[in-house]
């Protein structure tokens, strides 16, 4: 088994894993970085969202070997005003989807800042981050507890 070398939260990590192992399983089961959650293992819930070179991806649908040499950020490496905003606005209940929500929101804010449009964007260039834009852009992260309102309020506060 080839040795896998990953750079996560600014540190180098090694793991001996089979090539078909997902980045999510390497994080949780080999490196015990368990802040990244497994919800569906099919890219349908967003609980496993991490940032790679600043972009959000679902780590369950990513082969770990494809991410050698990339800068991976998991919730353990996040230090962002969104975190306290989530607590203040109660944008969480059970907390299981929360790390994914926060990583996703960080990626989303930089996508929006870079001018990327969403399916809710009518104008050619996206304008302010409206509530409708936040809801659309955060729809890859399911919260079964239904903390969506608090999540949107927290993001809105940090964005403005």
């Amino acid at each position, binding site marked *: 088994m080839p040795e896998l070398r990953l750079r996560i939260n600014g540190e180098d990590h090694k793991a001996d894993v*089979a090539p078909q192992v997902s980045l999510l399983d390497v994080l949780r089961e080999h490196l015990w970085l368990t802040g990244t959650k497994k919800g569906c293992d099919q*890219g349908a819930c967003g609980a496993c969202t991490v940032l790679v070179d600043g972009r959000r991806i679902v780590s369950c*649908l990513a*082969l770990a070997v*494809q991410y050698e040499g990339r800068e991976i950020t998991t919730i353990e490496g996040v230090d962002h005003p969104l975190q306290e905003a989530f607590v203040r606005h109660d944008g969480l209940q059970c907390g299981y989807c929360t790390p994914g929500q926060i990583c996703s929101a960080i*990626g989303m804010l930089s996508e929006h800042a*870079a001018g990327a449009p969403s399916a809710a964007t009518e104008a050619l260039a996206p304008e302010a981050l409206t509530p409708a834009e936040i809801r659309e852009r955060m729809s*890859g992260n399911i919260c079964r507890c239904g903390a969506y309102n608090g999540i949107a309020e927290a993001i809105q506060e940090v964005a403005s």
Partner: protein
Amino acid sequence: MDFLRPSTWDEALAAKAAHPDAVPIAGGTDVMVELNFDRRRPPALLDLTRVAPLTEWGTDGDLLRVGAGVSYRRIIEELGSRLPGLAMASRTVGSPQIRNRGTVGGNLGSASPAGDAHPPLLAAGALVELASVRGVRRVPVDGFFRGPKRSVLEPDELIAGFLVRPGGAQQFAKVGTRNAMVIAVCSFALSLSLETRSVGTGIGSAAPTPLRATEAEEFLSRELDWEARGPVPPSVAQRFGELVAAAASPIDDVRGTAAYRSHALSVLARRTLAWAWKGFREVGP
């Protein structure tokens, strides 16, 4: 399970020739679902992410050539003005996280009847470029799909990219159960070219394969007032919608009935026509 990691296109083709049962993987957003859910245990995986040319796009004569490994995100951000229909469809693929990784090449490879990229490629008359150690062939996308999750791709072939003529007015619309993260109940793409006075269509999730509504295309190209770009008579829009719906062969399933799909397709056809023609009238070709 073997894991093959070519770093050049030639190596990739050689690997596929040597391991025709290897499953190509790029963004992984389709293949990994099958791996994780144990639906499929392929003997080998062929990782294409190191093959740089797959992630490039550029011109090829008067066509735009897009590598199979270009992500939906890049299509939205970099090709939004050249391929507006495909970019619109790309905005609705899965979630933003999926769009950051998923590729049109992967969508074609899976050949799902519900693939969001297929209708705009059909409407734009795209060519799919297939390659193997035997050579390269370009297949019109409406001849690419063979059935649900089946295509003309040979076991030793890889999808290199697709080619499409940029320009014209393009639109895409889809309906689904939710407001986002939608698997299409049905979808429709329309492309109008003032230059060639032609109409292109693409239907998704309403037949065993994505398909064109050729009769509707011919009807509309005859009836539109290309010269003066005058308004589309309601009867023409109505008939166009009917012909689009007639081209589909939907079934009842958990996301919607066949009758609903036919109805919704005619609505989407009329809507996209109104949007596209309005764009022409306001902006010009």
